[in-house]
């Protein structure tokens, strides 16, 4: 055990000295996470919808919308609603983007509807906020569809002998909300863009980081120091243990530093530290196992580095480290489960939904399975060869 730590200490000293581990383990993922989170819009987060209205009508139908529908939407924090009395002022604010979409209920709107002549509501949207305008349109369309239904009902009621159409309309206006906006963020348990790219880049570059430790056994052979280690009064397992330990420390340090740095610098929210730690440890072990298989079947450090880079990139792409898997075709989302990356990100996503530590159990077990299986493959494939002088 002591010898393993001595070997790991020497390896870590070499890795720190050549700076490549720092570049690939910290600088590159941190830089890319920062860039991605800055330039790619956050498609998973809620966004502000700013609505306004000008009620020139003052009738039952416009009031039903203004006092019956819009307050509920505002109460659910789905949009902010601003009343205007002056149409010109409201139009100026829409033009400038202060208000995203404006409802204009013209004078005589309710009377026209009640008289059966129909009526029109103007919806004015800011050109840069098309989604907000579409939402405003959907809210209004839902309400107007209900008004149509109410109109038909009132007409039917009057034809069957009802005496007070105003009372009927007032009753209809108190009907349930016409439109409900659903916040999809928590339901699909996805990370916000900043956290997603921080975690994605961290687990993507983790595979490059641990390869330094795993491949150093090939470097020992290349430098001719492996026979010297084999001739030392230490067990052969301590040589492998030293390599695994340095890989683990490099990988875990990279992940922890990235988590702390992205939290402090770009506001990533990794979630419950204990759950994150479990996911990180499992992820690092899985990465070590996979990179060990590649190293075992390689003959030189250069060959190992090339293959490990290819494997790291392919698994990273398949595992959804560059885009949320919810936006990927179903087949890709399915096959992504063949990578530790996807399990790691899923674990973080579930953790961010606030369901407690239990949600990381399955992702962690999946990654540990990768570790066990790949280490077994590496041991079998490298038996009698890895530690040959």
């Amino acid at each position, binding site marked *: 055990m002591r010898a393993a730590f*001595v070997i790991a200490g020497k390896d870590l000293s*070499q890795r720190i000295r050549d700076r490549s581990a720092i570049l690939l383990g910290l600088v590159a993922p941190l830089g890319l996470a920062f860039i991605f989170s800055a330039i790619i819009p956050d498609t998973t987060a809620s966004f502000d919808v700013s609505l306004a209205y000008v009620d020139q009508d003052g009738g039952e139908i416009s009031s039903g919308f203004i006092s019956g529908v819009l307050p509920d939407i505002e109460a659910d924090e789905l949009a902010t609603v601003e009343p205007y009395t002056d149409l010109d002022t409201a139009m100026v604010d829409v033009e400038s983007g202060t208000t995203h979409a404006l409802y204009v209920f013209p004078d005589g709107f309710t009377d026209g509807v009640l008289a059966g002549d129909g009526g029109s509501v103007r919806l004015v949207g800011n050109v840069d906020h098309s989604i907000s305008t579409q939402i405003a349109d959907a809210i209004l369309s839902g309400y107007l569809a209900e008004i149509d239904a109410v109109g038909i009902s009132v007409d039917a009621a009057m034809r069957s002998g009802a005496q007070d159409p105003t009372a009927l309309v007032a009753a209809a206006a108190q009907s349930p909300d016409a439109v409900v906006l659903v916040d999809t963020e928590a339901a699909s348990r996805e990370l916000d863009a900043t956290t997603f790219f921080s975690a994605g880049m961290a687990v993507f570059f983790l595979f490059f980081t641990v390869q330094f430790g795993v491949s150093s056994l090939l470097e020992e052979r290349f430098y001719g120091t492996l*026979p*010297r280690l084999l*001739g030392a*009064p230490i067990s*052969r397992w301590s040589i492998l243990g030293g390599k695994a330990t340095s890989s683990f420390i490099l990988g875990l340090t990279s992940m922890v530093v990235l988590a702390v740095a992205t939290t402090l610098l770009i506001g990533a929210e990794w979630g419950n530290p204990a759950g994150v730690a479990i996911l990180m440890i499992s992820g690092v072990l899985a990465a070590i196992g996979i990179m060990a298989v590649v190293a075992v079947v390689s003959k030189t450090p250069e060959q190992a580095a090339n293959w490990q880079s290819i494997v790291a990139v392919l698994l990273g792409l398949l595992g959804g480290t560059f885009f949320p898997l919810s936006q990927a075709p179903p087949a890709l989302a399915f096959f992504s489960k063949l990578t530790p990356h996807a399990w790691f990100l899923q674990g973080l996503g579930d953790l961010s939904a606030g369901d407690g530590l239990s949600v990381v159990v399955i992702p962690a077990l999946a990654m540990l399975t990768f570790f066990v299986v790949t280490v077994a493959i590496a041991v079998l494939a490298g038996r009698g060869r890895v530690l040959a002088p």
Partner: protein
Amino acid sequence: MNVLECEGLVKAFDDLVAVDDVGFHIAAGETYGLLGPNGAGKTTSISMIAGILESDSGSVTVGGTEITTRTTEGKRQIGYVPQDIAIYPDLSARENLRFFGKLYGIPKARLDERIDEVLAVIGLTDRGDDRTEEYSGGMRRRLNIGIGLLHEPMLLILDEPTVGVDPQSRNSILEGVEELGRTGTAVLYTTHYMEEAERLCDRVAIIDGGKIRAEGTRRELVELVGQLDTINLGVVGSARRLAEALASVTELESVIATEGSVEILVEGASGLLPRVLEIAQQSDVGVSGVEVIEPNLESVFLHLTGKALRD
């Protein structure tokens, strides 16, 4: 007491038997040479002796402790210097020594002291903190040996330590090995340089094709193949007259006179040389030069294997 005892070592790689029934012993303070060409089985043999390579059969003990690839304690008594330079280029000499010192379990206080001693012995005290990638080939080679000496082993195994070394460094290495013998360290030295084996080794094993063909002191090996010494005399005067006078000396195997010189074949030239010179003086033949050629291990190797060492 023997420091190293090995017997019946066999190692085959698929159909190729690299080492076949190799066995010998080395006493404390003795330098033992394995002399043979490349591919003779020298490195495979010492890899098994150092516990690096598992043997197919046979046994090795160092200081009475059995050595295998799985043992650890006995390896503490062995210093192994591989043929290829085995150091970390991105670490300094001091860091290389410290790393291997820790692996050999040298206590920290002693390790610091010992590193300074070894750096002094290998002449790298002034460059001890420089990265070894900045060293010359000779300096790296010296550090390679220094690492093997660090833990003061009972047995030092040197695998062709002078290959690719400049003459100055080579001489420094050979002097160091001679000094080791004097301090009581047993040395196992492999080489394909006959001169090194003759200079350093108390006993030599001639190895070829994975087998030890002969073993003994230089004299024993020479006698084993019946080789004679040659005395070449440069003469001023009649070479024929001198040859006729020397014919009366029965210990001389043959005397051949040529223009200006006489070639004498004899067993034990150094013992008979004064008498030869005395006869030349009595015969009134001047001697302008004397060359004594003793049979060497090269000729022994040639005799035993039918090929030259560098083939």
